[in-house]
């Protein structure tokens, strides 16, 4: 079925966006990315390490995967805007996963700094994909600021706690005019399927794959879960009922 994820006019046949953090090696990461079927994958920007061997950029290039730089580690709008501009220079893309976190303990987004950074980056011509709280009002503000998608968390980054407030994710999906991508908190395949069943346009995950016992197997599980959840969403689930509804005809 031809059902692409379209962000800012660009179509992706996979609805699974991967992160690259946490993988034990580039080799393991490469096999996981291939198994996931992803076409868009995040990287972080850091000071060059003269001793580093191998490059995540080369790996993505070899796999034909588009790179999505993030602003991970930024606590203020000023820092995030600077990192986004550095990423645009280094990688030749104006797409950015905007992350502005409030503190190291929760890694929750700082809503005020996030919105400020989003406004500045949109004005500078960036395609902004903000990692945001599961707050329908903030999601609306980000969309109105010109973001190309909104990416609410299911639960804190790396926690694997799944989607703690499904109702809020549904509310965000219902009113959003841009793709909603569930970002952060996915623990296992069923969480990804639920995100898609709730109507999300895609899922972004890293830890649940890269730190799984078998990243390659989990990546395949995520690929299937995202597809299954998407199909279920399009198909429309049956209503929940209080009492039974016989599925066989009554006895004559």
């Amino acid at each position, binding site marked *: 079925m031809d059902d692409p994820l379209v962000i800012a006019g660009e179509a992706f046949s996979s609805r699974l966006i991967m992160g690259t953090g946490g993988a034990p090696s580039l080799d393991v990461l490469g096999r996981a990315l291939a198994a996931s079927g992803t076409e868009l994958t995040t990287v*972080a920007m850091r000071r060059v390490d003269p001793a580093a061997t191998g490059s995540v950029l080369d790996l993505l290039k070899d796999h034909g995967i588009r790179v999505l730089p993030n602003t991970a580690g930024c606590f203020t709008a000023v820092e995030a805007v600077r990192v986004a501009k550095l990423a645009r220079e280094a990688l030749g893309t104006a797409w950015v996963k905007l992350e502005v976190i409030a503190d190291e303990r929760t890694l929750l987004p700082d809503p005020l700094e996030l919105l400020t950074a989003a406004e500045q980056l949109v004005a500078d011509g960036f395609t902004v994909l903000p990692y945001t709280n599961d707050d329908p009002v903030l999601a609306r503000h980000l969309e109105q600021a010109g973001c190309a998608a909104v990416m609410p968390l299911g639960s804190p980054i790396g926690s694997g706690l799944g989607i703690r407030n499904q109702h809020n994710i549904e509310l965000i999906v219902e009113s959003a005019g841009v793709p909603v991508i569930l970002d952060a908190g996915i623990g296992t395949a069923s969480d990804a399927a639920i995100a898609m069943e709730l109507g999300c346009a895609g899922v972004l995950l890293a830890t649940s794959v890269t730190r799984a016992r078998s990243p390659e197997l989990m990546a395949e599980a995520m690929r299937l879960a995202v597809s299954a959840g998407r199909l279920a969403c399009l198909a429309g689930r049956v209503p929940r009922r209080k009492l039974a509804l016989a599925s066989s005809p009554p006895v004559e």
Partner: protein
Amino acid sequence: MEITVNGEPRAATAGLSLAQAVALVTNAETGVAAAVNGDVIRRAAWEATQLSDGDQVEVLTAVQGG
């Protein structure tokens, strides 16, 4: 004069260009960006950008993350 490259102080001759400062930490042709005192400098301007005493140079690249 003395400049800082990625947090490390380095002795430098007057008139050192940003391109030369970047070359102290990497010889990558692509995938690298630089900022001087927080201002991002386009690669095309690295040769012509002369550093001054006390300048803070940041040289970044993509790593696994997110």
